[in-house]
């Protein structure tokens, strides 16, 4: 609602015909501020899982095909640069933009936290926030690389945006529904083997972790909730001697989600490499 009011304020000078007046500057400035606060509220109150992919896809879905559509690709590549310099330049540009956006939001949220709580974060909390920030950038990088891959494959920007959004919708909303079905088909628990139930849970978690959303959720959980000691099923024999509710040091939390972080970074590299190979083999003339 507030975001809609902000957007109206930005567009109002032209719609209502008071452009080039002092009212226009106030309207646009206030519109930008109100829209920004509304989006920030969405970010803080709701799950940041949803905002990062949208921003990343928006940054990447027309990065390569727009050059073809504007007929600037052959003009750029007529300069004395290697062909891969284009893709190697475009991807970090999008990633740095995403990192700046996420860092600005992160710092604003920290500032709001200090204002509201009246407490300064200690070193461990700042480092945990920083680690979360790295995970968020890697998570955004996956969606940016995916959007860029579709941007290389499809010449129309709209056609490239649709599969990116479809993949995001699949992982954000439908993956949780599909995982139990696939798990039951692949590794159903045996009625006479109690350990097979454990195997079913493990297989289900492995399938669930194909989704970058699951990887990011687990990384977030371990970094922002220091009492998280495990991300899978834990047997009672494994928690003997542990102090319930005691926070883990940052190093241990990092060890807990190191596979998730590695998988996120590997996904970024894999998607970028596929986009790179496809782009290198493309016909760029005309």
């Amino acid at each position, binding site marked *: *609602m*507030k975001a809609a*009011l902000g957007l*109206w*304020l930005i567009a*109002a*000078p032209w719609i*209502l*015909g*008071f452009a080039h*007046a*002092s*009212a*226009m500057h*106030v*309207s646009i400035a*206030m519109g930008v*501020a*109100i829209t920004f*606060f*509304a989006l*920030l*509220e969405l970010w*803080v*109150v*709701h*799950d940041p899982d949803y905002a990062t992919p949208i921003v990343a896809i928006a940054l990447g879905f027309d990065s390569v095909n727009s050059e073809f559509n504007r007929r600037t690709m052959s003009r750029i590549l007529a300069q004395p640069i290697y062909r891969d310099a284009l893709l190697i330049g475009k991807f970090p540009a999008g990633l740095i933009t995403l990192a700046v956006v996420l860092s600005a939001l992160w710092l604003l949220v920290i500032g*709001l936290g200090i*204002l*509201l709580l009246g407490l300064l974060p200690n070193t461990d909390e700042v480092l945990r926030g920083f680690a979360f920030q790295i995970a968020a950038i890697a998570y955004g990088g996956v969606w940016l690389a995916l959007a860029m891959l579709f941007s290389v494959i499809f010449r129309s920007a709209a056609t490239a945006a649709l599969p990116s959004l479809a993949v995001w919708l699949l992982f954000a909303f439908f993956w949780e529904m599909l995982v139990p079905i696939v798990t039951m088909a692949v590794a159903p628990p045996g009625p006479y083997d109690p350990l097979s139930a454990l195997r079913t*849970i493990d297989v289900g*978690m492995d399938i669930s972790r194909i989704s970058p959303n699951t990887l990011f*959720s*687990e990384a*977030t*959980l371990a970094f922002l*909730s220091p009492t*998280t000691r495990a*991300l*899978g*099923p834990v047997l009672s024999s494994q928690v003997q001697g542990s102090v319930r509710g005691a926070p883990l040091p940052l190093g241990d939390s990092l060890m807990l989600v190191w596979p998730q972080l590695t998988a996120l970074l590997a996904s970024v590299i894999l998607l970028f490499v596929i986009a790179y190979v496809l782009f290198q083999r493309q016909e760029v003339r005309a």
Partner: protein
Amino acid sequence: MIARRTSWPRRETALDLYTLACGVFLLSAPWLFGFVRPLGRLDAELLGAAVMSG
């Protein structure tokens, strides 16, 4: 099993105060800056009130 993060409960935050300040500024802008265009004046007043009430 994995304990999923749940949505944080909605409560008044500093962001609401910032938005309220924007609404007050917008509502008082026609008087502060002496808007001439009647539509610009009306738009600022209505939107300022809407932002404050939202």
